[in-house]
């Protein structure tokens, strides 16, 4: 089982790294990080912050684009090009196929993040003479967030077209980062409605409360520690560890949904 997953993962990785658009994105991001060093010169004593902030933001943005644009094609393209017939006609289960595809793209994103991180550290050493090891925490959580994003792209890729999948994935990313703000606005209002005592208000208030708390389960803000790290707010490894566990849980849920959807799909 592991061998089959690994074979599919390696094949996915080899296919992904052959895409020219990937190199264009990587070069563009490296250029952005480099540009932050020059922009940092314009700020008074905050050049390191500027480099770190832009570096982490660039890593997250590039990673999100890669995850979505490569991820949506992972299953959909295989069906469209009919390459999937020769794989699923072997003793490969659909679950192994989905997990193999997931691991393959995860490998691409992992290598991209390592490359960016090394570049960011080198730039920091050259400009400020020191490395901030706290950046590792932010990079670990960026990787976890991207792995969740890849898992959700697989859910959409297993049943919808590329365009729809792209829209759904970016909507998920946006929604995932707005849930905390949404909760801050909506939960006090819901509490007020429940406290009013009127039957209709109580019902609406409770519905909003349940909906918002449900949304908080898929909050991606748990992974967003970039700003805090850049501004030196202390973040412990225990927080990062909880983020990793949370990420694995979300990945697991989304992968199970993707497997369930894909298992029922007729490959016409």
């Amino acid at each position, binding site marked *: 089982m592991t*061998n*089959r997953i690994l*074979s*599919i993962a390696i*094949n996915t990785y*080899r*296919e992904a790294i*052959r895409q020219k658009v990937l190199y264009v994105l990587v070069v563009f991001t490296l250029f952005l990080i480099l540009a932050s060093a020059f922009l940092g010169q314009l700020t008074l004593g905050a050049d390191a912050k500027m480099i770190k902030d832009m570096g982490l933001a660039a890593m997250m943005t590039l990673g999100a684009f890669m995850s979505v644009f490569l991820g949506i094609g992972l299953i959909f393209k295989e069906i469209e*090009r*009919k*390459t999937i*017939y*020769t*794989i*699923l*006609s*072997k*003793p*490969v*289960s659909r679950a192994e196929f989905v997990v193999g595809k997931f691991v393959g793209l995860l490998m691409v994103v992992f290598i991209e993040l390592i490359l960016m991180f090394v570049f960011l550290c080198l730039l920091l050493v050259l400009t400020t003479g020191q490395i901030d090891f706290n950046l590792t925490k932010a990079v670990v959580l960026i990787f976890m967030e991207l792995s969740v994003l890849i898992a959700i792209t697989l859910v959409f890729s297993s049943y919808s077209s590329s365009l729809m999948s792209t829209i759904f994935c970016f909507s998920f990313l946006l929604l995932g980062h707005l849930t905390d703000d949404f909760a801050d606005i909506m939960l006090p209002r819901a509490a007020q409605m429940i406290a009013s005592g009127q039957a209709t208000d109580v019902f609406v208030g409770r519905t909003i409360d349940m909906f918002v708390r449900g949304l908080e389960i898929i909050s991606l803000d748990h992974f967003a520690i970039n700003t805090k790290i850049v501004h030196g707010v202390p973040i412990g490894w225990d927080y990062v560890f909880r983020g990793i566990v949370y990420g694995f849980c979300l990945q697991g849920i989304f992968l199970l949904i993707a497997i369930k959807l894909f298992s*029922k799909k*007729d*490959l*016409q």
Partner: protein
Amino acid sequence: MKQLPVIQIKNITKSFKTDFWKKKVLAVDDVSFSIDEGNVFGLVGHNGAGKTTLIKILMGLIAPTSGEAHILSNSCMSSLARKDIGYLPESAYYYDFLRANEILMFYAKLFGLPRTLAENRINELLELVGLNHRKDLRLRYFSKGMLQRIGIAQALINDPKIVIMDEPMSGLDPIGRKDVKDIIIRLRSLGKTIIFSSHILSDIESLCDHVAILVRGRLHACGALNEIVQPKVNEVEVIFRGALSGHWPEQIKIHGAPRTVADTFSVTLSSMDQLYETIEYAKNQNLQLLSVLPHKETLEDIFVDSAGAMKRK
């Protein structure tokens, strides 16, 4: 001793929607048959008859709406059933960034073959399909015929007991078709069970010992080819050189009138019974006998009749 069926298809029906707003289409309608070990089984049908759908159901790529299919006693929906099968899809596509030997190694790994065994098997198969001199070439530079050969090689990577091929000769030139036929003959000599679909009836007739005829998703006939296609001679065409003086003798029954082309003429006898009488008559008339062509029933006749009968229904 009765052979055990390696494939059993029981009351398989498959319907699907081509579009959300459209009505369901019945692609396969209550089809049942079995295939014995060592058979070369031809699945015959016009385009859209349900051949590919039936094969995809066997491969677990699509689920039947009702009914069940078993391969070597395993349900076709289980990945276990695919351990001893080789499958060549219709107009298959492959990862074109890989080289011939790389793609075969990828498929070998999916079967869990040890590396040394896989390498030996890949060399054997590249030799078999005549691509050993192209093993380091990326698939994107392959012609259609070469891709079909790679398809056959990947279908045989696990040395399967059953080989299922969907239109293996479609789109190939005469040499490519002959090569694929030779491979099928070789697999038959190795005792493999081979199932292949085609609408080229001469291919089916020359290679298969058993056939199933599908018309609009329904099984019209199934069984041994020599049972379905009767070997009896329906009529005989006799061709002579020379000119016919006067009328054709009434006592020798023929279909239609004698046909004259250049310095030859031909007649079609209703049966073999009057052949010797015809030859004797020609000898007396100083006509030179050029050929005697017995017309037997062909798979094409059966198929055309079946399609016509279904259409009338």
